């Protein structure tokens, strides 16, 4: 099994992708949790037949700041849906490459971004990272992420990546259609934006 474990952090801290050949993505906590949620959700309204979380982790080389795994661990304490999703993420933690960047940022980047998000941005700006995935596209946080990134063309949303994963057959378009509806209903995702993504990538 080829996973992020095989990707080494080079001498200058840049990600060495020669071994994996995959594009390097940084994700924040919500992306991991939200992709794991439909996998563990056994209710009838949850989409079935695919695993978007595993698909993301095997299709790209996923990197996270340590604090993101800390936030996932914090979320894993209960017995609700979110906690169960957090437990699933932790069981796949070997497939994530983690970075200790605590010393690089004394405090969160302000503007209402939390530590995990701030560190994810720092990683994207300062390491050899291809793109940053976020779920924070429905609030002004999306503005802040755009402002804080040195190259905002590196910013992608979870639904955009889910749609992209259908292009090469990593996920079935029907599954992604169902998943987008599920997220719209349970997470209040910006329906119009997601609708445009559907038209563009799934029809």
């Amino acid at each position, binding site marked *: 099994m080829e996973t992020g474990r095989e990707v080494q952090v080079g001498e200058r801290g840049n990600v060495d992708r020669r071994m994996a050949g995959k594009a390097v993505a940084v994700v924040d906590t919500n992306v991991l949790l939200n992709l794991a949620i439909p996998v563990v959700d056994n209710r009838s309204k949850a989409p079935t037949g695919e695993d978007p979380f595993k698909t993301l982790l*095997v299709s790209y080389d996923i990197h996270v700041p340590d604090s993101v795994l800390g936030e996932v661990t914090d979320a894993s304490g209960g017995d609700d849906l979110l906690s169960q999703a957090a437990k699933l993420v932790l069981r796949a933690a070997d497939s994530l490459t983690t970075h200790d960047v605590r010393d690089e940022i004394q405090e969160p980047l302000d503007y209402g971004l939390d530590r995990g998000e701030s560190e994810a941005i720092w990683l994207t700006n300062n390491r050899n990272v291809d793109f940053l995935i976020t779920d924070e596209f429905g609030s002004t946080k999306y503005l802040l992420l755009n402002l804080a990134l040195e190259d905002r063309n590196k910013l992608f949303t979870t639904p955009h990546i889910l749609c992209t994963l259908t292009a090469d057959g990593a996920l079935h378009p029907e599954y992604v259609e169902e998943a987008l509806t599920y997220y719209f209903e349970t997470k209040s995702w910006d329906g119009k934006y997601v609708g445009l993504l559907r038209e563009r990538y799934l029809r």
Partner: protein
Amino acid sequence: MPEEKKRVDFNADVSVIESADSITEVTNDTRTDFIIDAIKNEIRKLRNDEDFRQEVVDAYYDGRIDHSIAEDILGVEEATRMKLLKESIDRVPPEPQLEDSVPTDEEFYDGKVPTWKPDERSKSASEGT
């Protein structure tokens, strides 16, 4: 300095204007002030109306209104968020590299995937998650 004025002429049903005039008789306003207040109230009401705001969002994404109109109604932050999001749709993310064989759940998660379903007691409380 007082704001520049713009002259607006319009025709209205006689009964509507007569009703307005009856009210301004009592309130001692001019007909013009009465109409301007009514327009201001309607603008304030619609700017705070979620359904209307959603209409503006839809119209912007569909290209039926431009950025400046969205900004005027929704505010700078919300309009800029939508502009950035709309622009990002055309961006192509790096290509996923799927391996020939995707690891099984057993391999990937080191065991079976745990599942979650609300039990009957907590069902109503968990439905909203």
